[in-house]
């Protein structure tokens, strides 16, 4: 701002002084021209008078014998002059004895038409004492006097031009004098008045002021342009005060200055406004960044609330749970939770109305309530009622949520649940190839009606049954054409998952992939949550010790397999498990977990946390060779393939997961 002002001021100054200089040069040129004109004008007069003087002198010389003719000569000479001037011829004393000691013939133009001629020499008017006479007498050429007051004639300031008259012998006998009234030079002021308020002075060669310097000039700064008149030796000066010369420029300068100050003020205002706006924007951006950072932390905290270590719990091998929350924003209002207490699996899935931070806070509160209330209450209806009332007490924002709450007794398969306005979960039952929604009562969502009487429901879960819970972020996921994923599609995909014998994690991940494919890049509009809960035959947890192999046969009895499949499945499982034991943990101990789900097929899942090891890539034995040619190894995986209908391997989160499936 200051720099801009400085630059502007500097530009203005340069412009001002350039203009000033230009004006001065222009004034000088003009003054010089006018001075030249004035000089010419003066010279015109002086030359005219000199000529008149010289002409008169010649005439007098020719007719010197006849004094009376001298009068006529003066009259003639005056007639040649344009100005109202006087012209005289003064003779040395006693030149014409008859006419007295002093003889000076003088003619003056009185008006345009009348010329007055007389003899003016007398003892009182002793011209011989006068400067013009004496100098005229002495000089051969025209001599110009200093200005003086003409007391005899016009009573004005005059200058005189004297010229000698000689007789036939060459002796100076008279002096011709022509007066020039300074009044006659007045018209040169037309030239010298260059500006309305400029001045001029004319000084004689001795410094006498013919046109004096006006008093008003004193104390002012001014410019002087001068010229010397050759004939008379006069100095003419044109005096132009700065104020006069630069008046217009100063006016413009002042105007420009005022405009510049106004401009700078406007500029300053604009800059101040811009700075404030920019600062606001910067503050806003900083605030936004801080909020984004805090939301990121909030997301981490929120995600940490949800159980991340998924069963099968090593201490609870009869449940397998996998959950996933994908918030549409940094934080969301969806939740799932689960834990086991007294052989009972408590779990829930909820969806808080709204999104973002307010929803996330209610979600966190709900999760705490779920844990604290289920810690001493097992009746699902009572849990819901208590959660509802607690939420009503603390619900200033009128936020509500839908929640599905389930409790599975792992010993008996008794399944209690209560649904508060949430989407009905899907049941993947071992005894039913059709995936169906769990029948739910139409209870109100939580946080709407105080003391609402939530009704619980009961069902039975067989080992291997799987409950798929979700929020509407799944069924209402939209693609670019605003089509919804929908319940039907979900059930169809779940049916396929069941047929493929997928475990809870696989089901959730498969469904996630299907949703992603379906929305095909469209922006996620709602939080997406899925939770798969499987009640199962307690998984077998083994150390990587070959001596543990016999426990497999005992464990398999719990599954209740058909008699004729007992041996082959035991064999296949043993081959697979012993392979893992031998190769997945080289030189160290580790665990191998075996799960089984029996429906119209049996699905074994063998998981370990060892090094990546894919037994399906192992070379199989060639069973067509002779005993001598046969290698000792490779029989195990061959048997697994022979016995099972499907063998698949997956490496997932540092785990080897081998799935064996056999139709029953």
């Amino acid at each position, binding site marked *: 701002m200051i720099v801009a002002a400085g630059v502007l001021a500097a530009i203005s100054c340069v412009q001002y002084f350039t203009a000033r200089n230009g004006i001065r040069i222009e004034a000088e040129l003009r003054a010089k021209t006018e001075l030249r004109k004035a000089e010419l004008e003066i010279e015109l007069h002086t030359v005219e008078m000199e000529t008149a003087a010289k002409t008169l002198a010649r005439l007098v010389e020719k007719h010197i014998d006849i004094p009376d003719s001298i009068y006529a000569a003066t009259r003639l000479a005056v007639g040649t002059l344009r100005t109202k001037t006087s012209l005289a011829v003064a003779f040395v004393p006693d030149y014409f004895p008859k006419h007295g000691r002093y003889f000076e013939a003088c003619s003056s133009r009185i008006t345009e038409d009348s010329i007055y001629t007389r003899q003016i020499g007398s003892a009182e008017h002793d011209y011989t004492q006068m400067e013009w006479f004496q100098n005229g007498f002495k000089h051969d050429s025209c001599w110009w006097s200093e200005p003086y007051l003409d007391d005899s004639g016009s009573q004005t300031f005059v200058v005189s031009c004297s010229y000698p008259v000689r007789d036939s012998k060459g002796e100076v006998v008279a002096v011709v004098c022509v007066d020039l009234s300074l009044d006659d030079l007045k018209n040169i002021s037309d030239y010298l008045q260059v500006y309305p308020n400029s001045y001029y002075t004319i000084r004689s060669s001795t410094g006498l002021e013919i046109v004096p310097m006006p008093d008003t000039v004193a104390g002012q700064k001014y410019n002087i342009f001068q010229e010397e008149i050759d004939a008379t030796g006069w100095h003419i000066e044109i005096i132009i005060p700065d104020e006069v010369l630069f008046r217009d420029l100063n006016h413009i300068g002042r105007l420009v200055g005022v405009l510049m100050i106004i401009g700078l003020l406007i500029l300053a205002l604009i800059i101040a406004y811009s700075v404030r706006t920019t600062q606001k924007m910067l503050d806003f951006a900083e605030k936004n960044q801080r909020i984004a950072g805090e939301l990121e932390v909030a997301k981490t905290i929120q995600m940490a609330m949800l159980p991340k270590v998924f069963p099968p719990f090593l201490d609870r091998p009869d449940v397998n749970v996998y959950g996933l929350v994908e918030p549409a924003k940094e934080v969301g209002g969806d939740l799932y939770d689960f834990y086991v207490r007294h052989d009972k699996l408590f779990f829930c899935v909820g969806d808080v109305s709204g999104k973002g931070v307010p929803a996330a806070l209610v979600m966190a509160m709900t999760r705490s309530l779920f844990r604290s209330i289920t810690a001493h209450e097992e009746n699902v209806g009572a849990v819901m009622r208590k959660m509802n009332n607690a939420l009503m007490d603390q619900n200033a924002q009128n936020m509500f949520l839908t929640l599905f709450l389930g409790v599975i007794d792992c010993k008996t398969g008794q399944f209690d649940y209560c649904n508060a306005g949430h989407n009905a979960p899907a049941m993947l039952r071992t005894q039913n190839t059709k995936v169906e929604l769990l029948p739910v009562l139409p209870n109100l969502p939580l946080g709407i009606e105080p003391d609402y009487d939530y009704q619980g429901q009961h069902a039975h879960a067989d080992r291997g049954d799987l409950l798929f819970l979700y929020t509407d972020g799944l069924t209402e996921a939209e693609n670019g054409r605003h089509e919804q994923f929908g319940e039907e599609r979900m059930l169809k995909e779940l049916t396929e998952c069941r047929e493929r014998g997928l475990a809870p994690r696989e089901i959730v991940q498969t469904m996630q992939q299907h949703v992603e494919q379906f929305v095909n890049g469209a922006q996620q509009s709602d939080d997406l949550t899925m939770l798969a809960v499987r009640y199962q035959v307690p998984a077998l947890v083994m150390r990587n010790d*070959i*001596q*543990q*192999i*016999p426990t497999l*046969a005992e464990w398999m009895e719990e599954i209740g397999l058909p008699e004729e499949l007992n*041996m*082959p499945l*035991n*064999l296949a499982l*043993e*081959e697979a498990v*012993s392979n893992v034991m031998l190769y997945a943990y080289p030189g160290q101990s580790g665990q191998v977990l075996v799960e089984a789900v029996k429906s119209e097929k049996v699905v074994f899942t063998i998981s370990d946390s060892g090094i990546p090891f894919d037994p399906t890539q192992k070379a199989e*034995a060639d*069973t*067509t*060779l*002779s*005993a*001598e040619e*046969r290698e*000792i*190894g490779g*029989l*195990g995986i*061959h*048997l697994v393939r*022979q*016995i099972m209908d499907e063998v698949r391997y997956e490496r997932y989160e540092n785990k080897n997961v081998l799935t064996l499936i056999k139709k029953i």
Partner: protein
Amino acid sequence: MKTEIVASGNQLIAKFSGRLDTAAAVQTIEDVKPLLEASNKEIILDCSALEYISSSGLRIFLSIRKEASAHGSKVIVRHINNDIRQVFMMTGFVSLFVIE
């Protein structure tokens, strides 16, 4: 799992009883060493009491079979149950052994 070996004339009769799984194979391989060293004998593997066999057991059988060929012995597998026969079928062992 139990392994009993009885020598009877030119015959060596090994009687397996129980489940010859991966765990049991560790001991069984020690138990059948006399069979691997025998030459010009008729080795009878009596499976009448063998309930179950896994690939580890099959490998022992294959080792016995290979050593026998090398030492001029002959191996006969006797009284295998249906489950084990099924395993023999799946692994092509039916064509490696004389099964009675």
